C-alpha cells in the first residue's frame, strides 16, 4: 500500500489557523492605515 502523500509545506502553512489569523490581522492593519491615510481624504467628493 502506497504511503499517503504529505501536503507541501506551503499547503500546510496555508491551511494552518495561524495563517488565517495573520491574514485577517494584516488586513485590519492595512485597512486602518488606508482609512487614516490621505488616500481616504482623496476619496471625498469635492462638491
Amino acid at each position: 500500500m502506497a504511503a499517503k502523500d504529505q501536503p507541501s509545506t506551503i499547503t500546510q502553512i496555508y491551511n494552518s489557523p495561524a495563517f488565517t489569523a495573520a491574514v485577517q490581522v494584516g488586513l485590519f492593519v492595512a485597512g486602518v492605515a488606508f482609512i487614516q491615510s490621505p488616500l481616504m481624504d482623496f476619496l471625498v467628493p469635492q462638491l
Partner: protein
Amino acid sequence: MSEQQPLQDVSKMAIPTIPSLSPQVPKQNGLWSSNPVFSYLNDVYTNIAEHRKSLGLTNPGTVENLSKEVTRDVFANQYFFTGLRADLNKAFSLNPAFQTSHTLSIGSENLPPYAFSALYAKEDFFVQGNVDNDLSFSGKVNYGWDEHNISKVTLQIAHNQPVMCQLEQDYQANDFSINVKALNPTLLNGGFTGVAVASLLQSFTSKFAVGIESMYSRQALSLPPDSAVNYFARYNAGNWIATAQLQAQGALVGSFWRKVTDRVEAGLETQLVASVKPITDSMMGTPIGYEPVVEGQTTIGAKYEYRQSVFRGQLNSAGKVAVFMEKRVLPTVSILFSGEIDHLKNSSKLGVGLQFESAGNEQLMLMQQGLVDANGNPVPGAPQM
C-alpha cells in the same frame, strides 16, 4: 487701648483658627452622617466621586452600541434587501411623533409580502409595533424614568415559533453604563429558566473605556445551565473610534471608524472565530480527534451623505461587494437600491424599492415639501404658497 468691637460683629473679627483643632460642625441628616462609621464612608464616597469628576470622564455609551458607528451607520448590512419593495409612510404628528408604515415586498428573501408598523414617540416614551401578513408580531416599548434610567420591553410572537419576551434596564451614569436584560425569564418551573445578561462599560479616561458582559442561560431545569463572559474595549479619539470585543465562544472582533469629513465616514471590521472541528477517519468514518479551525472575515466600507441621497458601499475579504443607495427624487418620494456581487461564488443579489412619504395634516405636508420649518415658519428661499 484698642476699641471694643460690638458683639454682633464678632464674626468679622480675624480670629486665627487651626482646622484640626476647630470643633466639628454637626452634620445634617441625622444618623446616616453623624454616625462616625457612616460619616467616614460618606467622606470616602464623596472623595472618590470628586476624584472621578475631576478626571473629566464622559459616558462611554452602551455595550450594545459599542461599534454602532461601523456596523449600523457605515455598513449596508442592516439596510440590505432583495427583490422589489414599496414603503408607504404616513406621519400624523411630529411632537409627539406618530407615524404608520405599510411595506409591500415581492421576491425578497427576508421581507414578508406585507407588513404594517406604527410608531409613537414622546420625549420619555417610545412604542413601536409591527405585524406582517403571517400575523407575526413584534413590539417594543421604551420608557425613560429619568435621564439615566430607561426600561425596555420587547415582544415577538412569530408564526410557529415560541414567544420571545425580553425585559431590559439601562442605567447610564456620568462615566459608566450598566445594562441588565432577561430573555423569556421565568421562575414558575421551580427555578430560573431563560437567558440573563448583565453588562458594564466603564470609562477609564475621557477617551478609553472597557467593558464586561456576563451571560447565564438555562433553557430548561432538566438541562445544564450555560454561561459566558465577553470583554470589550473602546477608544474614542473624536474623529476616529476603535473597538475590540473578545467573545466567550472564541470570537475576536475589531472595528475602526473614521469621520473623514462631515458627510463621509469610513469603517472597517475584522472578525476572527476560533472553533474546534472533529477529524474523522477517512476509511472508517469514525471520529479520531479534533483540530482547531480559525475563520476570519474583514469588511471595509464607506458612507457618503449627499444633499438628496445617501450611499453606502462595502467590500469584504470573502469577495463580496455590496452597495446600498437611497436617493430622494421628490420631496416625498425616495428610491432605494441595493446590490451585492459575490465574486467567489459568482452570484449576485439585487433589490429595488420606492419609499413614499405622506402627511396626516397640512403643516406636515408643507414641511415634507420643504416649504415651512418645524415651527411653521416659511423656509427662506422656498417658493411660497
